Each structure stands twice: as C-alpha cells, then as structure tokens.
C-alpha cells in the first residue's frame, strides 16, 4: 500500500496579532505548526499502513525551507518518506496554483511507485479555504471524498474502499474505487505518541527537496503568482462592531441591570416576547 499525505505548515492563528498602528499581521514570534487537520491525515495514513500489514507513507509539502520542520514531525509520526517542494518561484500561489504543484508532484511520485490513497486535511487554518484537496483530486481525475471521518473497508486487491464522510444530514457511507483522495476531519484517527526509536530515526532524517526545475520541471505558467488567478486587493483588520453600555451588577444592583437587559432583549423583536396586548384564545 502506498499513501501520500499533503501537509502544510501554518502559523498558529490563535497567536496571530495585529499591529494596531499599521493594521498588518505581526508574524514574528508566532509559532509555526503542522496544520491540525493534517496531523490527523498523517496518522490516518500510518494507521492504514499498519492495518493492511505494511506499505509506504509519503508526505509532501509545498512551502518555504522552514517547512522541513513540519515534515520531520510527520516522519516522527511514522511517515517513511518526506518531500519538500520549495522554490521562490512557487511563492504567492493561490489554491489553483497550489493544487497544480501538488497534483504534478503526486503524478511523479505515482510513476515511481503507484499510489493507492491520498490524504489531505479538511482545511488549512491560515486560510480555511478547503479548496486544495478538491482541486488536486480533480486534476488527477480520481474520486474525491471530503470530510472523511472513517475508513470502514480498504481492499487493495479489489481496488475498492468504503469511507464515511460527515455531511449536514449525518454520516454518508460511500464506496469508491482506488486510488481515492480523502480530505479528513480530526476523527479519522486519534494522534498517538511516537515511540522513542522513531523520534531518534526522525532526528537524522533529511527530507528530499524538489525545486521548480529539479528533479522534474513544473510548468512556469501554472506556478506561483503567475499561475494564480486571484490576488489580494486589500487586507484590513475587521471593523469592530462597536459595543454599547456595560453595566455592573455590583454597582447598579441586579434589578436595575436586568430591567435594562430586558429592554435590550425586546429590541430584538423575539416572537415569544411580544408584550401581552391581545386576548389569548
């Protein structure tokens, strides 16, 4: 079995702050983490490998040189091979350009060793687009199952799998041919602690680095800014909704504060709360 997992290194958005003077993002000192959903994607691949009794898990990322750290974490988790796709020419990529690069890389990996399943996170927390996985599946022309929460069956010989996905009405159980691309929710696999020997092995591991031209060329028209139809027109901090009065129970007493609160609740025109004017039949 050969699984490929696409992971992304993202800033920990809970620590992102805005410079009040310039209105820009302060990235200094913000820790970079493996996108939380992608950790579960790696775990799902490693657990599937164990379940079918062996195989290979390849992790890939497109990002700056620093993203190699994120790949090492995946190796600690049990990935066998890690590829960093990194080149200044890839910079400024939107989801269309990103999906091109990842799809092309997976094609190359597949030519070396056929791929049975591809895992993506449900979304990356820096942009929350959830578009790259569907884009890659479309480019590779293979089935896509988004929001996957469990793999019920995985039959390499019959080239089929049964996957559960979360939809608004509940859980949809789908049968698919292989290879398939899944984008996963956290439930797909709980993350386990890596055993010590694996940590030691990972510490010595060197990810492969692919550039825009080597070992295979990427189409310069489809990468980076050039390959990205969307541009950021402007970025700004959200206009704060201005708050109203803040009243203290300790200062004004409970009754006075609650009376004011009731007036505010009535402003909302909540149906249950219409004053009793007519006769209730």
């Amino acid at each position, binding site marked *: 079995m050969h699984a490929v997992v696409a992971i992304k290194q993202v800033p920990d958005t809970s620590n992102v702050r805005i410079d009040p003077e310039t209105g820009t993002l302060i990235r200094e000192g913000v820790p970079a983490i493996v996108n939380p959903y992608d950790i579960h994607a790696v775990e799902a691949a490693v657990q599937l490998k164990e379940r079918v009794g062996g195989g290979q898990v390849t992790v890939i990322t497109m990002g700056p040189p620093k993203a190699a750290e994120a790949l090492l974490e995946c190796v600690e988790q049990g990935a066998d091979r890690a590829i960093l796709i990194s080149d200044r020419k890839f910079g400024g990529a939107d989801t269309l350009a990103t999906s091109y690069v990842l799809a092309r890389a997976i094609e190359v990996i597949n030519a070396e060793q056929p791929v049975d399943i591809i895992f993506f996170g449900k979304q990356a927390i820096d942009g929350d687009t*959830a578009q790259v996985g569907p884009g890659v599946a479309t480019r590779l022309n293979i089935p896509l199952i988004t929001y996957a929460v469990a793999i019920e069956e995985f039959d390499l010989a019959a080239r089929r799998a049964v996957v559960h996905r979360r939809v608004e009405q*509940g859980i949809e159980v789908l049968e698919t041919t292989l290879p398939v691309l899944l984008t996963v929710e956290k439930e797909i696999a709980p993350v386990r602690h890596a055993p010590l020997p694996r940590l030691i092995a990972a510490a010595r591991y060197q990810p492969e680095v692919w550039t825009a031209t080597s070992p295979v060329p990427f189409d310069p028209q489809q990468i980076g800014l050039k390959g990205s139809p*969307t541009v*950021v027109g402007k970025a*700004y901090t959200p206009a704060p909704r201005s708050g109203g009065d803040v009243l203290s129970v300790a200062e004004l007493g409970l009754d006075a504060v609650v009376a004011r609160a009731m007036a505010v609740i009535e402003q909302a025109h909540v149906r*249950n*709360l219409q004053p009793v004017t007519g006769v209730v039949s």
Partner: protein
Amino acid sequence: MNAEQPTIPRIWVFVEQQEHQVHSVSWELLGAAKRLSADLPGSVVEAVLPGHQVADLAPQAFQYGASRVYVIDNPVLEIYRNLPYAVAVSQLVAEYRPEIFLIGATTLGRDLAGSIATRVSTGLTADCTELSIDPANHILAATRPTFGGNLMATILCRRHRPQMATVRPRVLPMPEPVPDATGEVVNVPFDMREEDVPVKRLRLIRAEEQPNIEYADVIVAGGRGVGGPEGFALLQELADALGGMVAASRPVVDAGWMDASRQVGQTGKTVRPKLYIAAGISGAVQHRVGMSGADVILAINTDPNAPIFQIATMGIVGDLYEVIPALIRQVKGQSYDGQAHL
C-alpha cells in the same frame, strides 16, 4: 458555443437541493446577486439547478430573483456526488461563460466549488462574508476573514472567468420572495451514466435530531465560565423561555459539556440570530467571527475587561448564576404561552 449574446454579464447562483429541499443559502445568494447586478450594468441574475426531477423547484428561484433557471436533470444527479455535479456544472459554465458564479459554503458547496474552479481554471474565493462590485473596473470584490478572523482580505480575480466565490449560510440576509415572479427555464442536456461514476452511496446514517443552531432566532451561548455541564440546564431554561437554542464556545465542546454541532465560531458554525446571549464567554476572535452578525448581543461576564463587551449591544458585568435566573424570571413573566401570536 452558445449563439445568443455572449457578452451579457451573467451572475450565476448554484441552487443547492438535497432530497428536493433547497438550502436557504441559495436564496441568500440570489439576494446578493441582485444587489451585485444593480452595480454591474446590463447584467442578469440566473440560477443553476442540477438534480433529478427538480424542475418544479425553478419557480422558487424566480421568486428569489433569478430571471432564468438552468435545469440539469439526470438520474446520476439524484444524490450529490462530486464527479457528476462537477462535470455537469463545469460544462454549463464553459458554454455560457458567466461573469460571476456564487455557491453556498456548505459541505456540498465546498466540495463542489473547488472542483469546478479547477476544471474551468479560474479563481475561487472561499467563505466570503461580503460581496460587492469594484466600481472602477466592474469586477467582483470578495471579502473574507483570514488568519482565524484576525484579518479581512478582499480578493479579486482580474482576468479569469467566472469569478467564483463561496459564501457561508446566514452571513447574508434572506431576501423577500416576490410571489408572482416568473422567468425562463432552460433544460440543459447532460449525458452521464451510472457506470461512469466511481463513487456510490451505500447508505446515509442520519444524525438524530441534529440541532441546527444556524437557523435559531435566539441563541443562549455558554462558555468556559459556565463551569460545567450542569450549568447548561440553566441556559436551556432561558433559551426555552425565549424560544431559542443553546450554543457553546469551543472549550465547552472540547470538554465534552456540549455536542460539537452546537459550537459557534471559526471552527464551528456561523450564526446570525436576532438575539445572542453570551454567558461566560470571553469573546476571543475565533468565537466572534461566528456570531458578530447577530442583531442584538447581550453579554454576561464577571470580567469587566472581557473582549466580548467590545461588540455587545449591552454588557453586564456580573455572575451569570445571578443574572440568568433573574432574566428567566422576567422573561417568563412577560411571555405568553398560548399558541396564538397576534
């Protein structure tokens, strides 16, 4: 290629239906499309309706503002699956070349939109909260929160068409339907056989009465300050008295006090109720992005510096275990419980 005036700027909305029920986000998007159309000279608002035996839903699309509905009918479209939907809609896009194409940022819509954008090789902006037409060059300005809601970015797609965007349910207002509006139905041929679809649905395990906080008019939300699962009974009592639902912040869900389907915020749901009562919620940005569209926000927090007060219509500095029982008494005193609403 389509013979009729190819230069009409078409603003398209994807009508999402499952089991013959149209998702309300589709009508919200038709309302947005109407507003965009007013700023885009000569443009028309049209709807795309794929499915099986769904043509009878077209009149609803007219009522919400479409002048034309493209019905794509084929048994392979009966249940949503990525491939047949993506192929069918992408073919239609390639034929008519709309200027703008809006899709709901639902589970289905997000699965589909990225596939269509890739097939027709265009730009797609996810999860927008605001749409407008840039007056200078007549292109779509699609605004969305990024970096966990810390930053808003306006995304433009200058040269590729259509300009695609997904929008979350309940972020845009629901338009008033025009009861006697009519329009044109275009039946779009689509050939695909079941054998050509690699994914089959074996079954659907329906979630038992999944709470749908997204559509509640009143939400009483509790945070870590509620202190434990028992406290939510009190919140439920207030919600019941107001005819609303209980929701929660993320730590509450992480602690298992409430089901994940009730989480409000960046990684939960976006809500837009008439009244949002936040009890024991500090108001972190990831929470606020999910609820700042509420008409009225009432916040109760012991900490006078809690950020939630910055956006609350009214803030109460006090213990929720003191304030909420008092509110319950007042609300029960005022509401009437007969069925008649005059």
